[in-house]
């Protein structure tokens, strides 16, 4: 019996190890390909071990760094503003819904919940945002449509408030003269950091990774996020030459096309890979909270 159990453990280790390798391997190929000499790629294709090591792709991108830096700026701005705004309005909606005294609570719950069941779809929301709000080619197009708040997070947060903040605590705070805003800010929120961190993290990831809004609403290259830039370069590698070069003579300079493609993807994914060890604990916890409560 002991043997069998040990066998199963060993089997688990082997399978999980293989699965982990399967998950990592594409990233290795990407990084290695970005460090391979252009002629090497033409002769042998992308490979896991560069035969001729070369950083020319990164040098090339470094020379044309302005657009990449700008795209990063857009992404960071959108992520920070979107996450803060989103968390704020989610909290402000979830807190009253967690209080039994709120008038029309059930009706409002239903209004929130129904958005999870039925969606108007892409075409109508596109028309609302472009025809009514004229959001096209503004930074708000990357922040507001769809991503800012969703019913699921509101429900998640409301459940958290209801199950972890004792009603007596809120009552006693209000006996002492705290208003609703005061109660929320100094009593409820300090006790709710786990859910705020979880939802905040997921919103961050959503904003950081979003490419769809940029594709729908943004045509001005100055407002491209890093994902949109990547998207454009994949469709059209010359985009890098016509838009990223500071003067015309640069265009003539030979570009290591194939490794540049990979290098720019590495630049796009690197921040996440570097930051992941620091937030993976919350990420995995967040998946579990979503699973249990959702």
């Amino acid at each position, binding site marked *: 019996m002991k043997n069998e159990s040990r066998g199963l453990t060993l089997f688990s280790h082997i399978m999980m190890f293989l699965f982990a390798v399967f998950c990592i391997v594409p990233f290795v190929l990407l990084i290695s390909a970005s460090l391979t000499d252009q002629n090497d790629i033409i002769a042998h294709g*992308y490979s896991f071990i560069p035969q001729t090591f070369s950083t020319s792709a990164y040098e090339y991108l470094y020379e044309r760094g302005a657009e990449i830096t700008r795209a990063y700026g857009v992404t960071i701005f959108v992520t920070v503003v979107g996450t803060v705004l989103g968390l704020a309005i989610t909290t402000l*909606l979830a807190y009253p819904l967690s209080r039994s005294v709120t008038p029309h609570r059930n009706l409002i719950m239903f209004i929130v919940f129904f958005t999870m069941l039925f969606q108007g779809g892409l075409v109508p929301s596109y028309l609302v945002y472009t025809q009514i709000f004229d959001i096209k080619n503004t930074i708000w197009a990357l922040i507001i449509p769809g991503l800012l708040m969703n019913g699921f997070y*509101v429900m998640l947060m409301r459940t958290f408030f209801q199950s972890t903040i004792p009603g007596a605590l809120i009552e006693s705070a209000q006996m002492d003269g705290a208003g609703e805003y005061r109660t929320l800010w100094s009593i409820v929120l300090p006790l709710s950091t786990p859910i705020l961190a979880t939802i905040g993290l997921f919103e961050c990831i959503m904003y950081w*990774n979003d490419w769809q809004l940029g594709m729908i609403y943004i045509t001005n290259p100055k407002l491209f996020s890093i*994902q949109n830039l*990547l998207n454009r370069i*994949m469709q059209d590698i010359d985009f890098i030459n016509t838009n990223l070069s500071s003067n015309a003579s640069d265009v003539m300079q030979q570009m290591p096309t194939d490794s540049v493609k*990979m290098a720019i993807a590495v630049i796009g*994914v690197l921040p996440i890979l570097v930051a992941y060890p620091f937030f993976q604990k919350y990420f995995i916890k967040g998946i579990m909270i979503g699973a249990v409560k959702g």
Partner: protein
Amino acid sequence: MDTALVPQAGIPHKKKKNKYRKYAPLLIMMVPGLLYLLFNNYLPMLGIAIAFKKINFAKGLLESDWVAFENFKYLFKTSDAFIITRNTILYNLLFIVVGTFLSFACAILLNEIKNKAVLKFYQSIITLPHLISMVIVSYLVYALLSADTGFMNHTVLPWFGMKDGISWYTEEKYWPWILTLVHFWKSVGYSSIVFFAALLGIDEEYYEAARLDGASRLQQIRHITLPILTPVIIMLTLLSIGRIFYSDFGLFYQVPMNSGALFNTTATIDTYVFKGLMGSGDIGMSAAAGVYQSIVGFLLVMLANYIVRLYSKDSALF
């Protein structure tokens, strides 16, 4: 004293007014969120009406002519409607059935690993793909499949004696496999964590008792873990069946690089609607496809939820 004895008509009303005044801060707090839902969710719901119009941007949306079901008629006359519905449903079924099996198996394996540090390590690696945007994923796939420079054509296929290579981005028959593999690469680790969380909830005493009775690890999995988790699996499956009309847009749009040659095996309702809107299709038909998706999707969610309720009220969405 009088008022206590004789109920007066005015009092409940006054009380109600006080209630509003007293809880006004709570109501005001909700205003931004509710306004957002109004503009982001409810106005587009009304916007479904445009599927019944011949959209003419020159005339404006309100002035465009009503054409009743014309857009739908066009949509269902083409073979597109059949192809996108078939693809959406078949891919989802495959993802649900095989994906549930793989994630569950993966969760069980994780549960066998008792070394906390190693477990954490595996967990972080297998959830990593879920964190990456589909744009990056499309680059990863491109590195493998590119016709001229891809790893498959240059390194893997020659091992099997195939010198010519395959033009992956124009051969539609390979894409059901590719997309399925990419989907599992991205999602199995993530959803195995979901199951793993459920496994952690199982009381250790059951296993204790089984061990005393001499049950092996496999018998414990078969007779304790599986039966306890069956309801969870059924719920999750039914809920994903409720979303069977929706596809992971990024997977079907980014990974095949929007290649027209692959329409038959990679187009789903979502990519069809998107392409229609972005100008490479008919916006009327695109709106019609969107409404078709919204309504059938809604009915399926209600149906799935109804079935879940039959099993267990607690697991239902509502």
